[in-house]
């Protein structure tokens, strides 16, 4: 590999990492509030199809991204209703959401198969930064949503670890009883976090259909939503570590696509297994190395005030 190819690969890793950042940060928000939402894959698919439909209908890329966000948030509101208010078991409810999203997106998306996206997000070099040697080509000649992903990771980290509402969010995930005693509205906080997290998962899907691919195909997420769940564990619920992890996974993904271009004789089908095998491997290492790793203490536990 010559230096030029490495830079191209890293730039591709940053683009491949963007949906993982959106979905991963979304899941960090939900889980830090104490609610596990395994439905990312479904929310991403619904976001992808809703965003794509909005792009076709309105011809406005930003409106399409907002629609993807709203669609994901709406799906997540259902999860919040079931798990926070009705106290349904979170793992199964998340699986139901994932399966529902898969079915719903396939149903709604039927007429949009094979249509090109009229207004895809295209790469825009940032003035000044885009001309930086190496870094400019890796980070600052991407599409607008990738820039949003940088900002999101930084803001989420700051908000969760450095602000008062962020503290309240963490309190709900550590000890809802204590949070309640502090005067935090646990139910409202959890609803907010789950819905915001779902919105970001929707946006992650929207990124695929509006910028990355950019088209709609059934099941286009191909397991990215589940990889995002793994990534949150890898990042120990920290947005900045999640950013790094997303690029690591992005690089593996990009490598799968590009190894052949580098003249290596391998089956492209076997290479497509890489992200999944890599996820398995990383999770195994994490489990072995960090037996006592940090986990939000009240993750997965329903909180009813009267109990």
């Amino acid at each position, binding site marked *: 590999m010559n230096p030029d190819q490495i830079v191209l690969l890293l730039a591709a890793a940053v683009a491949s990492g963007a949906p993982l950042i959106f979905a991963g940060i979304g899941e960090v928000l939900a889980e830090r509030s104490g609610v596990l939402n*395994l439905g990312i894959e479904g929310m991403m698919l619904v976001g992808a199809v809703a965003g794509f439909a909005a792009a076709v209908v309105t011809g406005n890329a930003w409106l399409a991204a907002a629609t993807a966000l709203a669609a994901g948030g709406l799906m997540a509101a*259902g999860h919040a209703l*079931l798990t926070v208010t*009705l*106290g*349904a*078991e979170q*793992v*199964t*409810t998340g*699986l*139901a*959401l994932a*399966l*529902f999203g*898969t*079915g*719903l997106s*396939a*149903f*709604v998306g*039927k007429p949009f198969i094979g249509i090109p996206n009229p207004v895809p997000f295209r790469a825009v070099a940032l003035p000044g930064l885009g001309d930086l040697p190496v870094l400019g080509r890796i980070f600052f000649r991407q599409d607008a949503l990738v820039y949003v992903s940088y900002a999101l990771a930084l803001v989420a980290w700051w908000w969760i670890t450095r602000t008062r509402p962020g503290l309240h969010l963490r309190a709900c995930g550590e000890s809802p009883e204590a949070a309640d005693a502090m005067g935090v509205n646990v139910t409202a906080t959890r609803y907010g976090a789950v819905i915001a997290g779902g919105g970001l998962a929707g946006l992650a899907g929207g990124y695929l259909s509006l910028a990355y691919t950019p088209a709609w195909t059934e099941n286009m997420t*191909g*397991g990215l939503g*589940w*990889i995002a*769940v*793994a990534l949150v*564990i890898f990042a120990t619920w920290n947005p900045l570590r999640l950013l790094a992890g997303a690029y690591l996974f992005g690089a593996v993904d990009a490598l799968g696509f590009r190894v052949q271009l580098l003249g290596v004789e391998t*089956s492209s*089908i*076997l290479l*497509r*297994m890489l992200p*999944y*095998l890599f*996820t*398995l491997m990383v*999770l*195994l290492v994490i*489990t*072995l190395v960090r*037996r006592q790793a940090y986990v939000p203490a009240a993750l997965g536990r329903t909180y009813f005030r009267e109990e």
Partner: protein
Amino acid sequence: MATAPWAEAVAIRVGSIVAAFITGAVFLAATGHDPWRAYREMTNGAFGSLFAVEQTLIKAIPLMLTGLGVTLAFTMGLWNIGAEGQLVVGALGASWLALSAPHLPAAVMLPGIVLLGLAGGAMWALIPAVLRAFAGMNEIISTLMLNYVALLWVDYLVFGVWADPAAFSFPYSRVFPTSAHLPTLFGDVHLGLVLALAATAGLAVLLSRTHWGYEIRTVGTSPAAARYAGMPVRRNILVVMAISGALSGLAGMGEVSGVIHRIQQGLSPGYGFTAIIVAWVAQLRPWAVVIVAVLFAALLNGGFVIQMTGVPAAIAYMLQALILTFVLGSEYLLRRLRRRRAVATTRAALAGSP
């Protein structure tokens, strides 16, 4: 005074299924379809003729087997979300024998195919089981990731060494020799139905009548108590996952050897995922799995048929997920009713005492 608790529980579950269909109808109407007509066509497509009933039963077989596999794992609190991958690897095992030793007589071929189907599924499930038992790795993500890997292995083989030389680049293998076709019972319904019902009976006895079944349930409901009682948790994880995977592998064997008679891309329309819903809606009860599997197979088949009228087949998957969602939500109602009854009993007891 009031209705019996079990009748109440059944009524609430049936009610949540009805609620799911009503929600589906609202959705159909909102997207410009006639819900009444869609449901009627689906029912017709699923049960309207002898052929339709046969097709529904054929689709119910893999749902029963994967549903049972998932049920066993869930009962022990193991989140085996990998039934789809286990089904696929079972199909790969069966296909390997059928394609590489086509001249075997049926008397050797069929038992061999069944064994390899079981072994393939068990092997694929043992990977996450070993990771969980010895490294403490969460099985939700590992079983899921392995689904994608298994599906890609099918692609790799049917586009590669197993590609049908007569079919240019279609994603399937050559047709299996007739010695590798599962015998049929009636119409196109294959022997897999008997295997699935036998597995149901076996699992029902295992879970409710044996000491080992008691152990599995205890590990599932209170792992700490199980460890305290000296139950071998690690060994149970391995054995339960192996059996769970083997049942799904058997489903995969049934698909390639009993239905499509070759291995191909997209050999399962997501049976292994639907299995999760089947198991949960059946409340992890083996005989209930059979009933729910037939209902869900009817939905799949109905969905397949109404495509012709312009309603996307995905409506079947939506309805299945909606049913699960409403069943999960209805647990709340059941809990409330149970608590109210407990309060009423306590009050009555207190009022009765001097």
